[in-house]
């Protein structure tokens, strides 16, 4: 698919999101969450390019969400909280990344899982600071110093999410086509050959890891601003699994995949929860199985395959 087509589709998608959010008010919440998760999944996509899957990426989502919760009391300004949360996630990602990029495949996945579970238990057990499983409520925040009413605030967060999604989407697309992006894909095919070419695979992966944590941080901050309540469940390993799920559901072939996948995931979840309250997770599991068995390229793969056939 050509570059212009993809950009056009992204803008069309953004317009569709705005139209849907205006037409169906309750969708505003769902779509904002979908965009936020899509941002985190964009980071998963980067790591998947290198053939690595992190089962602990929710760590950065939760880290950013709790940053918003704690800092929100001091500086209740969304446009300051968001970069702050992304920065915290990125810095922690750098510290952890220096350690985990030395490992591959199952060990990479497990170490990430372990660290996110450590953070989860810290959030849950240190009740005096984090209020444990009850979580923390986030008070009202301002946008550019403006105190917005409920509906306007929802629109503001949605707008913020859209801008970030388009911006990071374009950035990741450009990065993946750059020499760095080619080197990243080289980690998956034959890492030793990168060494022979004088490229340090660990540094290539570290850049991807830090970028992925910062993007997950943006996603986490958006989730905190939307739900206005953060709980340790954000860091649990099933949340990380959910992010990998969305990446596969949407398809790893394009930067539009994560957002497509996230929207499909959130909508399936809402409808499944309404239809079969006790078995929504089972419905999602069956959807995931179906995608893996029948459409390994994800939803995005289905779209491009349809086009090629036409």
């Amino acid at each position: 698919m050509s570059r212009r087509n993809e950009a056009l589709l992204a803008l069309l998608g953004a317009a569709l999101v705005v139209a849907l959010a205006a037409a169906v008010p309750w969708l505003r919440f769902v779509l904002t969450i979908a965009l936020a998760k899509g941002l985190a999944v964009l980071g998963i996509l980067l790591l998947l390019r290198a053939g690595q899957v992190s089962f602990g990426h929710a760590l950065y989502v939760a880290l950013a969400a709790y940053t918003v919760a704690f800092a929100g009391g001091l500086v209740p300004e969304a446009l300051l909280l968001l970069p702050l949360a992304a920065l915290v996630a990125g810095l922690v990602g750098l510290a952890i990344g220096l350690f985990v990029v030395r490992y591959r495949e199952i060990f990479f996945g497990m170490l990430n899982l372990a660290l996110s579970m450590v953070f989860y238990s810290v959030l849950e057990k240190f009740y005096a600071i984090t209020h444990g499983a009850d979580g923390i409520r986030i008070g009202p925040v301002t946008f550019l110093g403006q105190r917005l009413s409920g509906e306007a605030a929802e629109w503001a967060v949605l707008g913020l999410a859209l801008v970030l999604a388009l911006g990071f989407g374009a950035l990741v697309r450009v990065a993946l086509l750059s020499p760095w992006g080619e080197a990243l894909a080289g980690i998956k095919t034959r890492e030793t050959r990168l060494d022979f070419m004088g490229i340090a695979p660990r540094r290539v992966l570290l850049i991807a890891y830090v970028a992925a944590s910062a993007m997950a941080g943006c996603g986490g901050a958006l989730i905190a601003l939307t739900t206005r309540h953060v709980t340790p469940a954000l860091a649990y390993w099933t949340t990380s699994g959910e992010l990998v799920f969305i990446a596969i559901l949407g398809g790893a072939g394009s930067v539009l995949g994560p957002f497509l996948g996230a929207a499909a995931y959130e909508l399936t979840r809402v409808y499944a929860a309404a239809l079969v309250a006790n078995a929504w997770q089972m419905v999602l599991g069956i959807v995931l199985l179906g995608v893996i068995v029948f459409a390994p390229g994800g939803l995005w793969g289905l779209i491009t395959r349809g086009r090629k056939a036409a």
Partner: protein
Amino acid sequence: MSWLSENGLIVGLALLDGLSYAAAVFMVAVGLNLVFGVLRVLNVAHGSLFAIGGYVAASLGLFVLSLGAPPWVGLPVLLAAAILVGVVLGPLIERLLLRRMQGQEPVLQLLVTFALFMILEDLQKLVFGVQPVVFDAPLKWLGTVDVPFGADTIPFTAYQLYVLPGVAVATLALLAFVLRYTLIGRMVVAVTADREAARALGIDAAKVTLLTFTVGTILAALGGALSVPTVSLVPGVGASTIVLSFAVVATAGLGQIEGAAVAALLIGLGRSFAVYVAPEFEVVVPYAIMVAVLLFRPQGLFGVAETRRI
């Protein structure tokens, strides 16, 4: 030394507790490790099989006792339930799902088991409900033993003192014997080492895989069944079990049977000491041990470093 004399009883209790806990963890982790060796897939749904084993054992046990059976029948029922779960679910999952995924991308194979986990978690809630399930007849029937510890004695349940570690040691011995000295065991080792070469030698790799997965499922279910008398079953027990077993497997090194026992002991004892000394860190300890081990031995305590292939 004075601390030890003051807190001697706590140390003793933590030792006993850790031992029985390690036994249950070992059963699950060794199954996971065995399955990973042959299928090269870390089965995320392994924890759900643990939970299902526990629920089936409790239901079966309560049913049998309600018929008026003497309380000692509870013990063989635990074993029977585990075998039942393994023989029914093992082949079903391997045949219908995992076999189709052979040769696919590792990420997709991992996600298939994640989808299975989501399905089994809800299925288990639908079938067994969300109320805690207790079945402690075997524990009560065996009574308690006074364990001499220094000048004091510690009253401890005979079930946790003899049955749990006993079954774990028997499992370890049986597995080590079968893998080393029997034809079918050598076949499993051969397929683990190199699937292609094993097939070239005329080994029916598909049959070996099916068998190994079934044994792994029985071990997970047995771990669950044996835990039932000591803990009450609640939803989510599968999710927490699997991350703990991951930690044990990664600490031990992939494919290590005896190593899994050592790692289970290390993590089991570490966790139970944390429970008595610093309960906030209870959940963190297993991961701390794992990270510390991987920091110095990236392939795990007993893992063999693979030479890099160009």
